[in-house]
């Protein structure tokens, strides 16, 4: 049987994708290594999360007495209930990673300047929403893990002067994590955040097209191809692969569920959700006001300020800015990895004890200052070796900081045991 491809024979999925794309795209724009399909993967993950999330709502009961039990019932008594929960759980985890990788991709291809500046802001907003989704979702099972992780994180704003305490109590619906908190988080998670997300995501897509598509390595060599089938087939393949992979993982690995939440007993050790693990490790080393207020404000401020700088058009779209960019990346990430790790050890075994015997009030300033000095040292080294300009400096600084965060996270997740002591 032969059939000519006609518009009518496209499935719903294809027709939908065609709405999002222009009719023609540049050949190099749809090379997989240009974007790694990460934007599309994020979009698909959101769809999977929304569908599984809505289904979960049919059995989930948002009260402290019944939440835990409703999840047990879902897992043990509902046909494919466990699979549904696992699918939601693993997709949520994966989305933090893929969104972060997407962020890295657009950052290191310098796709955040001029007409893409606004989309970088929306993207940062989307990333914040993803973290908010994960954090509010984390509380819903109401087990020991969720209760204490949320207790710790929801106390963090206390270190923000003046507004902090009000903010904490506002989010929690009171001074403690209780039924009010659960209801707040449930409503945020299943109605307010999804709404905001859909709005931001639509704007995000619109702006990608308004900027005439993704940035290209060599924009001069244009060779246009039609979207159907060239791009759509790739998207469908990636989507299928992703979905099958998630399904397999969800069949093999169950989402964790600890004992029922007990407000009178903090488990030892207690660990923050993994994407906040670096923050938790930071809190062990530096003063809480630095960790919770100063460092995040400086870093986020930097992310928002940077794209307002005037970059040269010819560097936009080049991976790592130029030819030596990759070497700068490798140097700065390796140096940062090594220094952060060493500083953690030195601080844990030497500085902390020394300072305790003086006064706990000075806690955490010394390692912070050492870290800043080390960073300046790395930058000077790069200046000498590579003669870096302003934008290479931005990239190096960004690399140093996010490598440190990764190191802190790994230490927190794998090297901290009872009483948060280091284990080797």
């Amino acid at each position: 049987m032969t059939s000519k491809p006609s518009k009518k024979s496209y499935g719903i999925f294809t027709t939908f994708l065609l709405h999002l794309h222009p009719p023609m795209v540049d050949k190099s724009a749809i090379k997989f290594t240009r974007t790694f399909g990460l934007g599309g993967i994020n979009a698909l993950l959101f769809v999977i999360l929304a569908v599984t999330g809505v289904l979960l709502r049919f059995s989930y009961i948002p009260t402290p007495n019944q939440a835990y039990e409703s999840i047990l019932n879902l897992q043990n008594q509902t046909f494919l209930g466990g699979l549904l929960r696992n699918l939601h759980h693993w997709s949520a985890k994966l989305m933090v990673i893929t969104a972060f990788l997407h962020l890295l991709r657009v950052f290191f291809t310098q796709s955040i300047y001029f007409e893409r500046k606004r989309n970088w802001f929306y993207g940062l907003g989307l990333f914040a929403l993803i973290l908010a989704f994960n954090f509010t979702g984390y509380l819903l099972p109401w087990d020991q893990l969720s209760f204490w992780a949320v207790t710790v994180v929801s106390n963090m704003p206390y270190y923000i002067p003046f507004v902090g305490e009000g903010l904490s109590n506002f989010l929690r619906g009171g001074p403690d994590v209780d039924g009010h908190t659960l209801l707040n988080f449930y409503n945020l998670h299943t109605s307010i955040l999804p709404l905001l997300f859909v709005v931001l995501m639509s704007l995000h897509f619109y702006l990608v097209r308004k900027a005439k598509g993704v940035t290209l390595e060599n924009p001069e060599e244009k060779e246009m191809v039609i979207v159907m089938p060239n791009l759509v087939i790739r998207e469908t393949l990636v989507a299928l692969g992703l979905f099958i992979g998630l399904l397999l993982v969800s069949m093999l690995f169950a989402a964790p569920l600890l004992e029922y939440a007990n407000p009178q007993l903090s488990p030892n050790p207690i660990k923050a959700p993994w994407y906040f693990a670096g923050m938790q490790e930071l809190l062990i080393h530096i003063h809480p006001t630095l960790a919770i207020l100063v460092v995040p404000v400086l870093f986020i401020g930097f992310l928002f300020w940077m794209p307002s700088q005037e970059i040269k058009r010819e560097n936009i779209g080049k991976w790592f800015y130029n030819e030596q960019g990759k070497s700068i990346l490798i140097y700065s990430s390796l140096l940062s990895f090594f220094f952060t790790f060493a500083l953690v050890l030195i601080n844990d075994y030497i500085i902390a004890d020394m300072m305790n015997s003086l006064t706990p009030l000075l806690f955490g300033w010394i390692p912070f200052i050492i870290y800043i000095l080390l960073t300046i040292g790395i930058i000077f080294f790069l200046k000498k070796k590579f003669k870096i300009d302003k934008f290479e400096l931005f990239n190096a600084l960004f690399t140093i900081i996010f490598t440190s965060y990764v190191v802190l996270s790994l230490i927190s997740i794998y090297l901290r045991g009872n009483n948060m002591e280091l284990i080797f």
Partner: protein
Amino acid sequence: MTMKFNRRGFIKKGVIALIGAQLGYLFFDSFKRKDQSDKDQKWFEVGPLSNLEKNTIYPYQSGQFYLSVLEDGGILAFSVKCTHLGCVIQAQKDGFICPCHSSSFNKYGEVMSPPATRALDTFDIKVKNGILMVNNQNAKKRSQFEKSQITYA
């Protein structure tokens, strides 16, 4: 059709104002709820004073506090919540340790090792007919330990 004001701008501002008002209301409401629980003066009955031994820390899990009886018979009542980020501290021989980021406190509630930067919150204590009672509804923040915080029966 002409309009005195821009309709789209009007609706946009209206929606923003409404959301703002709602958020503001919730924000200030959250202060109020806390104040009310503060006024609620409830005393937790610990029991006869004579049962308490010197130089000991007693846990009162259901009341969410620890009693620390000092060597001279002075008594302090501490909230179980770590002043760092609110985990429940565990009693040791001579003080407390927090399982979350390993802050430790001595029997006066003073910080022995950070990340906590404030001494443990205290509760008021009173003795009536030889029975010790603790006001565990109203945690008092303090930056450091002072003698005046100790209750002598």
